């Protein structure tokens, strides 16, 4: 029996080929670099963007928890793949899948790249909601694009997004309790005139 997840995948992926322009846009957006690089630059700009020491410290604390949240996200996805579940990519189960991407060999669930994008976007949202909304929108487009391109089931990207957001939220909570850590990093950076 085809699960709802797989039916949704077949519906979304079935749209490939109807609008060649959309296929080109999605192919560009879902490559391994574009969205990750854009979100990384947003975070880098945040480090220096504050107007005065207090505002800068707020943004830099956000930078630190997002960076550590990203590291935690990667570990969580790896552990998930090793100990919890290994799911074949949709193009293995459905050879007729319309592929707009190369054939990755790792587990389909959870989507590592979507987890990373949502970790970035959630971190940015927690620091600056106005920019964060755009970051979340970009991450969402990326996630849907990965399904459209035939390399993930919808549940893979939902799982990835949840892992990314939860990891950054956990790191934020942890660093609120261990405030000495971001404070120390910022103190050292301030001595170097970089914060």
């Amino acid at each position, binding site marked *: 029996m085809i699960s709802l997840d797989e039916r949704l995948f077949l519906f979304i992926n079935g749209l490939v080929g109807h609008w060649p322009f959309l296929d080109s846009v999605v192919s560009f957006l879902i490559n391994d670099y574009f969205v990750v690089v854009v979100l990384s630059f947003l975070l880098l700009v945040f480090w*220096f963007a504050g107007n005065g020491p207090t505002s800068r410290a707020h943004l830099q604390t956000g930078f630190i928890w997002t960076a550590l949240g990203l590291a935690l996200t990667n570990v969580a996805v790896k552990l998930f793949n090793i100990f919890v579940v290994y799911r074949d990519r949709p193009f293995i189960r459905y050879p007729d899948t319309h592929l707009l991407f*190369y054939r990755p060999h790792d587990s389909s669930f959870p989507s590592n790249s979507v987890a990373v994008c949502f970790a970035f976007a959630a971190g940015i949202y927690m620091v600056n909601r106005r920019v964060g909304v755009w970051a979340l929108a970009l991450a969402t487009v990326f996630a849907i694009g990965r399904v459209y391109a035939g390399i993930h089931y919808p549940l893979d990207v939902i799982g990835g997004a949840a892992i990314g957001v939860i990891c950054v939220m956990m790191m934020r909570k942890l660093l609120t309790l261990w405030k000495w850590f971001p404070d120390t990093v910022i103190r*050292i950076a301030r001595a170097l005139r970089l914060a």
Partner: protein
Amino acid sequence: MALLAFDYFLLVFVTSCGLLQGVFAFRGIVGLQFFQRRACAFAFAAASTAASFLWFFTKPDLDIPPNIIEGKQQTLTFMAGAVSSVIFSLLVASLINRRRRFVTSTPSESSGLDDLRHTTFVKILPTVERDLRAVLRSLVSGVRK
């Protein structure tokens, strides 16, 4: 793959240099600016970002195995590119602004990045070293206690 990683490094380096110039000009951190006019800094930011993105993302062999960069290597390359661009900005802006007369004098107490509104990084390097030693000393003594 190594060549693509180097291209990725260049993308990050050039774009970071441009974006940082935009931010420094926006926030008035004069000692880190390559240009005296804000408009020039914004134009430089836009041009370097657009040029490097166009160059990298129009590569015909991008994302075609084995020409891909794995996640871990991507992260390390991004960090290397971003850190290099910050160091480059500190040094080049110091060189460009070495003869510049700043409107206000250097404050006696450190206020971090804001110090570079009044001077260049190279000019306050001895103070930076002293402050860094003081911070590290206080951290070490804090750990011992």
